[in-house]
């Protein structure tokens, strides 16, 4: 697959009263055409800031992209002028936000919000764009699409609003769709609907997706590659099957162990990751996970390990080889999910 997006050494910092927040500390990755890449991490891991930086959606100031390149279709997005970038945003790279309740404009009809991008980017007329908006709403499975075009966001339920957001995102046939925790605010049954919808649309429209989430469960069913972030660094990157079967970074291992699994018998005890998430105000000189890591050795406190290949399609940033450690250690009864 040809590559669509290449991020090189991206660094974003926020200059606040309390000091410099090191949100993203030099991350590099590639997204190929038609591929779904999941970026997993907790709040404060830099996963959202990382992708918002791609299309410069970071409020500047206080934020600043201090270093890096973002190559998309032969151009460095970080070097484009605001006007040039605006032609890419919402057009060839679209974004879906986490909270469908707050990211739609409450005083505009959803028809207006969808047609806005169509008129702007594709120079459609009012009529054309309304027709296209109806098609889009049908595509994302909103019943009675034509009659709902003039409804306001509050007249839709949470799941339906997220569908509207997706319809807006898809309106200009983007090559890359960035979804920032699109199902976090939704119930599981609605989440299943949305994941199903996005997977189907991806196959139909052939776009690449960057799916940001903290939920390792959702990722397993839809991504081809997984990137795990911690404290503004990529700590592990691998093919989806690899990362669940044999994580090579203790943080990934910790995440997988700390969640109860519905398909397994009752674990005696969950194995939490001890300690607290890191303080991003300090520029890390050692491995950012070392204070919480049960495998930490002296070297971890001396230098931050680089992200290096540990196998085919598998990179990890860790001084210790944890490949012998099983994810599920002490499960008595194992039942496979229905």
């Amino acid at each position, binding site marked *: 697959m040809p590559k669509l997006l290449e991020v090189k050494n991206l660094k974003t910092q926020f200059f606040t009263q309390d000091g410099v927040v090191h949100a993203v500390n030099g991350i590099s990755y590639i997204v190929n055409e038609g591929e779904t890449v999941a970026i997993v991490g*907790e*709040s404060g891991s830099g996963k959202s800031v990382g992708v918002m930086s791609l299309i410069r959606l970071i409020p500047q100031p206080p934020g600043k992209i201090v270093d890096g390149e973002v190559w998309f279709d032969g151009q460095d997005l970080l070097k484009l002028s605001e006007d040039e970038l605006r032609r890419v945003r919402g057009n060839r790279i679209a974004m879906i936000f986490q909270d469908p309740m707050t990211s739609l404009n409450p005083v505009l009809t959803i028809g207006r919000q969808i047609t806005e991008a169509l008129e702007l980017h594709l120079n459609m007329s009012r009529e054309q764009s309304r027709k296209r908006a109806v098609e889009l709403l049908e595509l994302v499975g909103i019943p009675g699409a034509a009659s709902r075009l003039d409804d306001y966001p509050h007249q839709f*339920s*949470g*799941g*339906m609003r997220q569908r509207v957001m997706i319809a807006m995102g898809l309106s200009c046939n983007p090559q890359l769709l960035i979804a920032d925790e699109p199902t976090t605010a939704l*119930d*599981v*049954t*609605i*989440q*299943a*609907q949305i*994941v*199903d919808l996005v997977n189907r649309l991806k196959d139909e429209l052939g776009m690449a997706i960057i799916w940001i989430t*903290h*939920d*390792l*469960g*959702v*990722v*397993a*069913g839809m991504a081809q590659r997984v990137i795990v972030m911690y404290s503004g660094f990529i700590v592990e990157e691998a093919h*989806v*099957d690899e990362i*669940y*079967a044999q994580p090579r970074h203790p943080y990934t291992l*910790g*995440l*997988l162990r*700390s*969640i*109860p*699994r*519905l*398909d397994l*018998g*009752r*674990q005696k*005890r*969950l*194995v*939490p*990751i*001890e300690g*607290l*998430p890191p303080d991003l105000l300090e520029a890390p000189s050692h491995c950012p996970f070392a204070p919480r890591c049960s495998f930490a050795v002296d070297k971890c406190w001396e230098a931050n390990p680089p992200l290096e290949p540990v196998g085919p399609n598998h990179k990890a940033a860790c001084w210790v080889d944890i490949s012998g450690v099983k994810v599920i250690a002490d499960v008595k009864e194992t*039942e*496979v*999910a*229905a």
Partner: protein
Amino acid sequence: MSAATNGVNGKGKLLEVNDLKMHFPITKGIVFQRQVGAIKAVDGVSFDLYSGETLGLVGESGCGKSTTGRAILQLYRPTDGQVVFEGKDLVQTKGEELRRMRRRMQMIFQDPYASLNPRMTVGSIVGEPLDVHGIGSSRKERQERVQELLKIVGLNPYFVNRYPHEFSGGQRQRIGVARALAVNPSFIVADEPISALDVSIQAQVINLMEDLQEELGLTYLFIAHDLSVVRHISDRIAVMYLGKIVELADRDELYRNPMHPYTQALLSAVPIPDPKIENQRKRIILEGDVPSPANPPKGCNFCTRCPRVMDICREQEPTFKDYGDGHYAACFLHE
């Protein structure tokens, strides 16, 4: 409910909820408010809770699970029904007597950022229930108790003079737990206690709650939308949909043999962090959204979204009955 179920580990019944209803009026008019309808947030919920067990209450947002928890604690006064706690019907209890009963039952809230007063120190937050209920004879005694409580929940006792903003989400939730434990309750309603926390922190709080249950013999009503967490912590699980319990069973039984189509759909919607399993699973995708509790459908509440709906479901309401070994369900497919 039938008296045949002898509880978990043969322990006694601590709480009995009978046909609990919590309707919120919808009114029209400004001066003379006429009631034009009701939001039936909880509409006839019955279950028993046995000493020392954890009952998980799951359902989607708006299904009435939190309202059920609050109505049991009399934070809302129920419209109808009985809540018999330690032999007394709380719905009929008022004033001082109810206040005294509150010592025996406490709540842990969902949002550790909103449920702690930012202007109070940790010491006064955890100590407040002691003052309110007049526990401990002197200030010093109370202070010692507060420090002891902080130790129990895994916080440094020297934190008493700090303010909530100085703590992380997981630590705040520990403070919330300490406050609930202050009055030595036997029953705790935990309303989504971990859903606002980071994944790596959630397990810490779950383990804490499990340890405390073992040490102090607590009984939990654990309200959550996350089925995998509920399955981990609960002994029995009740599934709610639109104000009613549609199925209630032992944890493993519910998972192995879900009888109600809603439970089946809910279980199949939970993603499993393993791509091998995930790619083989067959999802039951429910169409549409939950109907409004102000205007529930005729017949079975689930009939508008049920993949196995029959004619009778749109006419009559199924009864909630025991299909053996304490596995309750309300569905015509099994009648």
